[in-house]
């Protein structure tokens, strides 16, 4: 099962490596990981996507909670939540037809073209990870020069919130 673990932690040097080190030391797998300070600069919010059986996920959350820098965490997959990922993708567009086709695709996927050269487009696209995957498939004929994905960010639906 795929789980999205959201972690509030002290914004201190080395906090990230404690989490990464824990995962490698105990053989857990990280699918994606994003981290940045919150509105309170003493706190960082980390979103970590991992997979494992219920027992493994239970151990992962317990072991994360043991890290001194971790203030609070929640497994968002336990309830309704919204997840988003951002992708920046640079594609080669040779010929008017190909450029038109890319513009159309970007519109369909509700992305933005954020940089243009005579031979390339750079596209910004936000959405569920599946949507980003689908866009890459749909690009099909336009050669991709570069893909940058942010990793998943997620938040619970409704009034619930993860805060100190």
């Amino acid at each position: 099962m795929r789980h999205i673990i959201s972690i509030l932690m002290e914004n201190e040097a080395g906090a990230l490596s404690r989490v990464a080190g824990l995962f490698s030391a105990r053989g857990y797998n990280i699918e994606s990981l994003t981290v940045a300070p919150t509105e309170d600069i003493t706190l960082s919010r980390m979103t970590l996507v991992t997979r494992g059986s219920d027992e493994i996920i239970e151990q992962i959350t317990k072991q994360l909670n043991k890290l001194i820098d971790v203030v609070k965490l929640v497994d968002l997959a336990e309830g309704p939540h919204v997840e988003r990922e951002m992708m920046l993708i640079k594609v080669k567009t040779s010929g008017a037809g190909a450029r038109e086709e890319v513009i159309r695709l970007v519109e369909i996927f509700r992305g933005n073209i954020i940089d243009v050269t005579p031979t390339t487009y750079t596209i910004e696209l936000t959405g569920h990870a599946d949507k980003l995957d689908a866009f890459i498939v749909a690009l099909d004929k336009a050669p991709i020069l570069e893909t940058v994905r942010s990793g998943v960010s997620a938040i619970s639906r409704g009034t619930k919130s993860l805060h100190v």
Partner: protein
Amino acid sequence: MKLTGAEILTRFLADEGVEYVFGYPGGAVLHIYDALHRQDRLKHILVRHEQAATHAADGYARSTGKPGVVLVTSGPGATNAVTGIATAYMDSIPMVVITGQVPTSLIGNDAFQEVDSVGITRPCVKHNFLVKDVKDLAMMLKKAFYIATTGRPGPVVVDIPKDITAEVTEYKYPRQIEMRSYNPVVKGHPGQIKRAVKMMVGAKRPMIYSGGGVILDDASKALTELGHLLNCPVTNTTMGLGGFPASDRQFVGLLGMHGTYEANMAISNCDVMIAIGARFDDRVTGNIEKFAPKAKIIHVDIDPASISKNVKVDVPIVGGVNNVVKAMLKQLKADGFQPNEEVLGKWWEQIEKWRAKDCLKYSTDGDRIKPQHAVDLVHQITKGDAFVTSDVGQHQMWAAQYYGFDKPRRWINSGGLGTMGFGLPAAMGVQLAHPKAQVVCITGEGSIQMNIQELSTCLQHCLPIKIVCLNNGYLGMVRQWQEFFYDNRYSHSYMDSLPDFVKLAEAYGHVGIQVDKPADMEGAIKETFKLKDRLVFLNILTDPEENVYPMVPAGAGLDEMILI
């Protein structure tokens, strides 16, 4: 008052109540050593290798319950300390390790004696700090002691760059501490405690399995009372020995790989298991599928991550062991609990049948000294009241099986990491903490050579430790496995050129005694313990091919033991 970082460190340690600092100087900690020289509240114990400093601090901590404190320099000072830090981490021992670091401006430059101490120690500490501003130093030290000694204890490293120790700032001892990210649970959940008590009351074949958590939380009094109230068999892990008196009729001995027949059979047949401050380690459970197959399990532990990690439990209780056991006692008494003697009588009848196998028997007829006999005699001659440290291997198991600990904090061994070389330096910490007590290091000729240089430290600080070396000429536990599982191919488990330990002890300024005949052994041990003010190295030449029994082979269930 304005002080340098180095002065703040020494002042803080004294204000925190620290008695001894175990350490070794070097470039990055010169300011600190100078500050040590200019004060008289802290005593510094100069070791001969940084690993020994950590083990000595560890022995001090295990035998007192107070945190051990270590001071080493950057680079190799820190890396040498890592084995001792990992040892303390695996056994949840409170320890604060101060490592020097190259000056802030040189960090990351591959400077002389630079190593990323925070990075290297990260996986084997409860937490660590790099001090970047002298103004944070006192508070970080306070946090280090707080984290090391509360919740599930463990080692904390504080890495201090040299320039920080020279900078000056205002110092005030921080009395209060609050951390939003660290609040260990100490009280057990009342509902869970009620459920656990109900399960105990209904048990037909109850059993207590307790570990190091009982020792660490000073819960042996409460545990003993619970055992007596329930009138059930009690087994201890290697870390938990002394948590329940070994001489008590209800004590069935060690469990696990080298556990007694009665303990392992009782585990395999009990219907309710009360696991207290133990973590279902692989050396305890054997084949996890076959572990306590008939039992409902209650598990009390301060660390939520230890619960349901290896074995799924029925009633988990997170909390301080002492608090929880006391709450259980209170509930049992409030309910007017009386053990059902008829039902328990049958259970005890069965246990006595297992006990009658006398699985720890050994013969003293031959012309070689039996190591078990040596441990038995040490027990007799010290009246079972010594502090016993051990190294790792066969002698460790024999000490655990035969010494019989009636009190907590008397048995000091590296249970989790299994660190050879632990015994002698640990004994130094114990002896310093208990200057009048009898401290014995039961070791082997393999292990003792891993930190033998500490004989010099013992002389400098007048530590009259008694080293009992069960010398069989082999790395015995390795040899035993090679005998059982590798067709007697004794690959590199034989040491061909052992030193003359008697002369070696003498060269270090101590007394050496050697004995190789069973008839002479009692006299030699008596003579050893008579020399109250001297370190004595008693080299006992034992039966080279004696094995540790019973033994549960890897992958087998606890009821599938090899008996002698």
